[in-house]
């Protein structure tokens, strides 16, 4: 019965999500835009700023960090090292996809229910709070993860197509896999939870999204601190980061569950 109830929520969410043109575009086009934009930025930076970047000390430190993490990189020409440094940011750049999709699904799903009053009717059924949250979280997290993985594949294909295929072996590292399969799900869940928290306070989905989009900034900070050589995300650090976010997820789940209590929704959300 529990599985049936969660499946029921999941299928309903997807049916609503994929019949809404705006949400559908966010889920399908946004990842492609992020991949395209990412490659364009890195190409532009490499093509037009390459030489000047090599003279900047923060990038020199970052290149040293890269060489420490992957010793074989030292044997590559300097311009290739710089290109690899830029492309290596992509696994963090990809985190924008689960963040934006999960937030969108959470706010779309909850604010919509809040506005139509369907959440009140739903809470009069035997569904449990955690079943409802899990069903909605899966509805957001599954497309977010799938699209992130598809985007990672597209990225690797494009990298090969534009003649940088020799760098693929360096890109597909332990950090890459940890980022895709540990960090991405953790970030997707965190984004969803923040979406729930934001939606509980918001009057419409736009203000909920504005509130919860704050999570995008930490993702950009992660890219910033790696590319400027402050920190290099080694597999160990990536693992630590994923575990840290998972702890935050547990706290956010508790907050979200409290906000999702029947009494809170019945009294405060109307």
């Amino acid at each position: 019965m529990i599985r049936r109830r969660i499946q029921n929520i999941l299928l309903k969410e997807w049916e609503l999500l994929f019949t809404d043109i705006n949400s559908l575009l966010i889920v399908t086009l946004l990842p492609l835009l992020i991949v395209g934009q990412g490659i364009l930025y890195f190409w532009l930076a490499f093509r037009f700023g390459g030489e000047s970047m090599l003279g900047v000390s923060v990038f020199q430190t970052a290149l040293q960090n890269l060489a420490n993490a992957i010793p074989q990189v030292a044997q590559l020409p300097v311009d290739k090292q710089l290109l690899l440094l830029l492309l290596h940011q992509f696994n963090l750049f990809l985190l924008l996809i689960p963040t934006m999709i999960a937030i969108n699904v959470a706010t779309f799903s909850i604010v919509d229910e809040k506005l139509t009053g369907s959440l009140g009717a739903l809470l009069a059924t035997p569904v449990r709070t955690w079943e409802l949250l899990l069903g909605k979280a899966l509805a957001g997290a599954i497309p977010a993860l799938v699209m992130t993985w598809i985007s990672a594949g597209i990225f690797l294909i494009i990298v090969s197509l534009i003649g940088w295929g020799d760098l693929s072996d360096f890109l597909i590292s332990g950090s890459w896999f940890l980022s895709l399969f540990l960090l991405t799900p953790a970030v997707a869940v965190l984004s969803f939870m923040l979406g729930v928290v934001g939606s509980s306070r918001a009057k419409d989905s736009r203000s909920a999204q504005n509130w919860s989009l704050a999570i995008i900034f930490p993702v950009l900070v992660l890219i910033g601190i790696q590319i400027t050589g402050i920190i290099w995300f080694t597999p160990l650090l990536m693992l630590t980061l994923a575990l840290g976010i998972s702890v935050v997820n547990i706290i956010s789940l508790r907050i979200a569950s409290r906000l999702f209590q029947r009494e809170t929704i019945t009294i405060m959300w109307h």
Partner: protein
Amino acid sequence: MATTEGQKASVLLIVITMTMIKTFGLSRLFGNVTAVDNLTLAVEEGEVIGLLGPNGAGKTTTIRMLTGMIQPTSGYATVSGLRTDQQVEQLHEIIGLLPEVPGFYDRFSGKRNLEYFAGFYPLLDYRSQVEKYLKLIGLWERRHDKVGTYSKGMKHRLAIARALLHEPKVLFFDEPTVGLDPEASKEVRDLISKLREAGRTIFLSTHNLGEAELLCDRVAVINTKLLAIDTTEQLRNRFFRRQIMVQLESLDTRLVEIISNLSFVKEMSHGDNRLFLQLTEPEHNRSELIRAIVEAGGRIVEVSEQKYPLEEVYLKLIREVGHDS
């Protein structure tokens, strides 16, 4: 032990009714504001009870506590033996709720909406339940249309169908006709009447006194506290004396004197060829009164009982009893 046929028959004739809803000093505070104060009442199986009261009287809060949506501050309630503050999931399997706002997914069809909500109950065949209730509420033909295209009345009927899908033991209707036009209100009332005839236990809150009188076996008048609970007839008798009106072709002093001297006439007034009487036992004395008038040569045009509208009973309760308490 052997039993006779007569004993068997009398055993079969006993109708066992169960108290479906019980509240024991149920109270709810919101900060310093008391929404519901020490509410104690009982509702029997198959009974339709109406909760009447002005805005802010605690009607919706009472329904929310009885349906396990919010917790009481003190006291407790049971529905079919389940504590509404402790056994919420089990409770939700045996109750049906029509909230003030129907709450549907406008982009889904009526049928898809019902199937979604039915999916949360341990039903054997929810598809046939959806079909059964869509037909009952008269929306089977429009089942594939998006709910966003339904009228308010249709949405309310659909919400009633949703409340019935899992064959609940008790139904809670919060202001079932509020905001509906007269035609849609009638459709919803007719549906509730059908459910009443089918022996469902219904707890409904309403502002509409006519609706309460038409649909409910008993009414509970609350204004934070319970002011009265009884049948509308008994409430009338409690607050207003029953008065018989006799319209005559003509009225003379002799006839007035004869009637006023009858032993069962407690009070009498007259005017415009009409007699207004209060009788000791209205049910029994009415025929004796008619006989006495006819024997005295009076020609009766009409005999009727002057009924006070429920509105007057309600206002008296809210103003006088509510004020005293």
